[in-house]
């Protein structure tokens, strides 16, 4: 604390290197200096400093660990669930779009299972949007995104219903509506859902960053307090030849316990949290990406047959079917994400479904090629059978379902692993703030009592 502070607000005079007037600080220092000339005075000072250091140690420990514990709790109960919700919104929108096109391919009367899947996904998206909105502060980027999605969802549903109504009447206008709805989903809604997912993931990363750093200030105070205690006891021993001062010994023991608890507890928590991120969150992110890529690929595959060349795009000067080009793009992405998921999987329970998905993806590509060949040859019905037909015609729908199921399995596994690791990490910090505070008070009391015992000898 600078000496000028006691003079109130008199800033024009620059701080003089040698204060001409005596300040409270200077007087205090003088008084201390005077007290330090006698042993009782010295003891009082030592006692005060020890108590201060130990209490400061306890306080910083409680403060820093409360922060970290709260952040770890957020990871487990707030930001990860929100990030998972955002991923669910993204996924169910893509899934609904895919189901809509599947139902369309099946003809005017869409199969009940496909319709249920569509409705379920729309419901999930709508519900999760409400949850997400409730836990988002107004004015933030996420809130803006959620608002946009809430506006777009009914528009999209309206287009799909128009598409269905027209398709039921046998009007090709239905297909045009479906393509329009798909465009709205692909170019407006899914990018927004992806934004939300990215933002929530950043929030999760922030919580991790708040939970995992070592509590250096608390550790420094702990070391300082212990050093001071050791010095005081050594001085005591040299002056009195008494090996133990019970009070200071108790203070030392309590401080050591707090420091060990702090370091070990946090290290355990940190490793739990880190592994929940590395093995859980990263895997979950890659698997979500893979799942969305497979859904988009499936939607595009369906639309290739719905539109049958109504829309083309130019690739290196060659005009190709827009939806088939998009299909290939998404399949490439799926392959990449599955490779990444395989590299991230740290046990066989995580790896098996990823490998299963990978095998199904390869079969899917093969069958898709056959379906395209049939369609290019003008055998529309056979191409259709290859996409949504019965089991005998070996349709790609089987492969897509297998990819989807395997990714679901992998996601469940990684989610469980995340919860276990992050839960363990958070639990390692349980009681630390309160325990540290209590022990620090005890240690301070011990130090004061120990010094008091010596002081009493001077009466």
């Amino acid at each position, binding site marked *: 604390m600078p000496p000028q502070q006691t003079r109130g607000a008199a800033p024009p005079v620059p701080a003089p290197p040698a204060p001409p007037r005596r300040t409270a600080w200077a007087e205090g220092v003088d008084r201390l200096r005077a007290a330090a000339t006698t042993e009782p005075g010295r003891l009082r000072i030592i006692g005060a400093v020890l108590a201060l250091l130990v209490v400061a140690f306890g306080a910083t420990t409680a403060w820093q660990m409360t922060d970290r514990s709260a952040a770890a709790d957020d990871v487990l109960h707030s930001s990860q669930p929100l990030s998972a919700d955002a991923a669910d919104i993204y996924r169910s929108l893509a899934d609904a779009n895919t189901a809509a096109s599947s139902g*369309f391919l099946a*003809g*005017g*009367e869409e199969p009940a299972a496909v319709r249920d899947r569509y409705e379920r996904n729309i419901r999930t998206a709508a519900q999760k949007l409400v949850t997400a909105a409730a836990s988002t502060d107004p004015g933030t980027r996420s809130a803006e995104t959620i608002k946009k999605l809430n506006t777009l969802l009914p528009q999209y549903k309206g287009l799909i219903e*128009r598409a269905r109504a*027209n*398709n*039921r*009447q*046998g*009007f*090709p*206008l*239905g*297909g*045009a*509506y479906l*393509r*329009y709805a798909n465009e709205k989903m692909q170019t407006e809604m899914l990018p927004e859902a992806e934004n939300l997912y990215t933002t929530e993931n950043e929030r999760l990363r922030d919580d991790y960053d708040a939970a995992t750093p070592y509590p250096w200030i608390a550790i420094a105070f702990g070391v300082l307090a212990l050093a001071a205690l050791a010095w005081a006891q050594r001085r005591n021993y040299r002056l009195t030849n008494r090996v133990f001062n019970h009070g200071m010994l108790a203070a030392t023991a309590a401080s050591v316990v707090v420091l060990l608890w702090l370091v070990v507890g946090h290290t355990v928590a940190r490793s739990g949290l880190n592994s929940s991120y590395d093995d859980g969150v990263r895997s979950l992110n890659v698997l979500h990406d893979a799942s969305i890529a497979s859904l988009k690929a499936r939607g595009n595959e369906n639309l290739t047959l719905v539109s*049958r*060349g*109504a*829309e*083309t795009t130019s690739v290196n000067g060659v*005009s190709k079917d*827009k939806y088939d080009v998009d299909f290939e793009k998404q399949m490439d992405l799926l392959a990449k994400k599955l490779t990444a998921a395989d590299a991230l999987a740290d046990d066989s329970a995580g790896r098996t479904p990823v490998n299963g998905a990978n095998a199904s993806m390869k079969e899917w590509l093969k069958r898709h090629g056959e379906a395209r060949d049939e369609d*290019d*040859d*003008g*055998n*529309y*019905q056979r191409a259709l059978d290859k996409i949504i037909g019965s089991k005998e015609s070996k349709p790609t729908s089987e492969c897509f379902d297998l990819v989807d199921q395997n990714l679901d399995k992998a996601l469940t596994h990684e989610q469980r692993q995340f919860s276990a690791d992050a839960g363990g990490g958070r639990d390692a910090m349980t009681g630390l703030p309160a325990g540290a505070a209590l022990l620090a008070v005890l240690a301070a009391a011990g130090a004061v009592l120990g010094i008091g015992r010596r002081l009493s000898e001077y009466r």
Partner: protein
Amino acid sequence: MEERGTRKVSLRGWGGVATMAVACALTVVFALLLPLTQRGGAVGGDGSTGAGPGGVAAGVQARADDCDADVEGKEPERSVSRSGSDSGGAVQAIMDRGYVSVGVDQNSYRWGYRDPNNLDESSELEGFDIDLAHEIAREILGSPDKIRFKAIPTNQRIPAIQRGDVDMVVRTMTISCERLKDVDFSTAYFQTGQQVLAPKASDIDGFDKSLGGKRVCSAAGSTAESALKQGRTDRKIPADTDISETVPNQLDCLVRLQLGEVDAVVTDGALAASQAAQDPTVQLKGEPFTKEYYGVAMKKGSDELVRRVNGILEDYRKSGGWQKSYDHWLKQALGASEGPPAPKYK
């Protein structure tokens, strides 16, 4: 104007007479202006068809000079005469292969479309164009089912023929001088013209100043798009008509119209009628402002095949097959027809 004159016109009383008088006057004006539009349209062309291989340019040039929509004897719908070989070459190739490969549409209601409620596996495509394609397969190969359909988008009709992906395109394809540089056409099998489609309640009454300030939709690369551009250049439609909305398929225009994103659609009268058949709240406004013929497009220089198809079309017209197909698919939307357009030969 065979079919057009006989379209069901539900106008009554003096208002109807007056409207008809106006319509006739407009028709005369359009007929006079038509050459301008046609020639301009040919120059504007549709961008996607300009990609023809340079190799055929020399042979094509002479032919292109022979083509003029408003000179008797040089109209684009004149096809190769019937005299000469109609077997061998491309026809032989089809017979050797055992099936005809035909490029069609699947989004044109009543022309070439897939009815999602038709569960009969053998005929997933149906319509006026599809009937004609089946007829061609029946005549060349003896069975209407020796055919493979390929759904091709509007802007891929010419490249698909040039690449040899299909033997022919039967897909509401307008015969034009511009397109004749890249492909050959059969004789005309249908007459139509560009027309405006708008909601019944709309104050738009045709391809005129009533389009001022309105948003008009057309298919990218289509005759309608170039007609709109030309119309604005020629001041036939006001400069503040917004024609920027172009879509991949003419049917997408009806989607935009129903959603209120555009105020009117310009497309072939025949296709506009197919759109009107899917939505009873819209109707054709005014008379066709161009005169166009649909033809079967084939690869440039495949004269034997063109002659063969022309022959098939002759039979199709005479046998009543054409009329039967028209009555089945188009009568409801377009009204009764006096019959197919008469073939013109070079």
